[in-house]
């Protein structure tokens, strides 16, 4: 799966989780840039991403995925 495809699919996940139809994300976006991306929302984001991409994150990965670029890179690795 290409980065652009992953980003577009991730955008849908982010919009659903943060309930924000206009939300845009880039590889540079981090938890600081999105209002409401707290630890509670982070778990929701992880679970929603897992469901959407049919993948499972490792326990060690969950905490480190607080920026979109890293998240997309891990997804690309898993969706090979």
């Amino acid at each position, binding site marked *: 799966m290409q980065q652009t495809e992953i980003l577009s699919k991730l955008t849908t996940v982010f919009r*659903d*989780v943060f*309930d924000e*139809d206009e939300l845009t994300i880039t590889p540079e976006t981090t938890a600081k840039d999105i209002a409401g991306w707290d*630890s*509670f929302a982070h*778990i*929701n984001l992880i*679970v*929603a991403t897992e*469901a959407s991409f049919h993948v499972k*994150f*490792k*326990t060690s990965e*969950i*905490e480190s995925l607080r920026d979109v670029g890293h998240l997309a890179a891990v997804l690309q690795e898993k969706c090979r």
Partner: protein
Amino acid sequence: MELRWLPKIDNWKARLREVPAISNRSDQWAQLTHLANARLDFVQTTAIDRLLTTLYSDTRPPPSELTPVRLGVLASSTIQHLLPAIRVGALRRGIWCETYASDYGQYLQEIFDPASGLKAFGPNAVLFALDSHHIAESDARAEVSDQAERSLDLLKSAWGAAAERFHCPILQNTFLPLFPPLLGNNEHRLRSSPHAVVRRLNERLRDAADEFGVHLIAVDETSARDGLPSWYDPGLWHHAKQEISPAAAPVYGDLVARLFAALRGRSYKCLVLDLDNTLWGGVVGDDGVSGIVLGQNSAVGEAYLDFQRYVLRLSRRGIILAVCSKNDENNAWAPFDEHSEMVLKRSDISCFVANWQDKASNLRFIAESLNIGIDSLVFVDDSAFERAQVRGELPMVAVPEIPEDPAFFPSVLQAAGYFEALDLSAEDRERTVQYQKAIQRKELIAGASDMDSYLESLEMKVVSGPFETSTMTRVAQLINKTNQFNLTTRRYTKEDVARFAVHPSFLTMQLQLLDRFGDNGIVCVVIGELKGVRLELDTWLMSCRVLGRQVEESTLNLVAAAAIAMGAKSLIGEFIPTSKNGMVKQFYEKLGFSKEAEDDAGRSTWRFDLENFKPRTTHIMEEHQLIYATN
């Protein structure tokens, strides 16, 4: 672990976005209820809950129910992610639910501290959502062989204290079997293993819950059916102390909300079945009785038999069965009469409709014939077209999505939890017969030349008396589910009812109606309180099944006699209007009460003088039994 019995709704998100613009508040609430009845994942569940709590932050939604559920949730780990699912589960049933959650680990203080947040919140239901780690795990170095018993004692004292302080129903999760076994297949022989503790605790919990009147949420069983990994994710436990995964939250919320429905007598009552490709394979009109797929000649035929057995068992525990089929009536009956392997018989079906009209009209007819609310029907049909037509016309009817393979009909119907019940009264078991008799009575009325001779021919008798221990369940059931013939629509728990029964200044009366067709069971409930020489009628309700049979007048005779015996000089009636009880607006007037007062909201009070009371003449023999509860 998804809401697989619910349909997916096209453009769900766009429709949700349009909800705030709906100006009529009832329509807005109805649309939210509609959108909650979809196969929502947890992200959608959170989205609809966010809208729900925004729209109704200041004012409650229009009263679909007189009182909202105010649920206090006591937890030992993170449960914040479950609250939206509980509120949306309630919304799915038209119930408004407000929640309060304790800080985790604080649940005992919440119960015992008179200044606690929970006390201030004032719950009318309390849910113990304790986790397995908290309840079953002990120090890995210490051998604790009686951990299950210790935990059970803790639960019992917490339930007892909560019941005493809040006087409301108590709900308790069972425990997820998430610990890895240490011995293996015979794990139960190692009493100190956390896995064995959870298992023993879940077993013992059943008896303890019955003893304390606590209602269980059986997440152990649901997770066993779904697969534990879809409920419990150890990674999320280590990260966020979430024992139930967010992905399972929508199902969890629905399990809790169906108990709310059952507590309010709002569970579904009647299962309406299509025939061709639902109860058997093939089309009886084309294939003939010998050509349909049913029974031993094929695996698919066995699957249909298995579904019929499940349906029959539901009927034996009190669910009314009806048939709604597009067929010629003779063809439709033929398998019931002629196919040797049919499990369901003519006598199991309380109302049978086979014709070529649209199914929504036929469902209306079925509800009318059985004298039950159309919102108590569940309709099972293999045809997606028919399901969509009924959902469009009758949104209050539950129409599950069933898979193509009949082998999975029972598990989907089970998973939907439409018929959730807390307790079975003896009358639940006899219901099919009662409803069939009711239809026979209707046929008799069509044949009788006039009303008086019809009533006379019924040979009716009422037996009245105070509430008894053995009838409390039925009385509480009637109090909680009677909407139409109910003067005040006050809801009481079984515990409240038991209190009234032994209170010296209260009159409690149940009426059982018998006639030539059989026993109708308890059909009428009255609660009154003597204040000075006035007997104030707090509750007066009747089952609509017996409407127009002079039970109303007989009840007045019996209530008046009992009131006079208690020293009352007058009866004071009260009418509180709701969206459903318009039929009794003039009730007291018709019985000869005179109006004392009426306010702007339509609440009225009525007075009936007992000093020169002459009993009304009816066609009912009246018998009053003075059995007083002994406890």
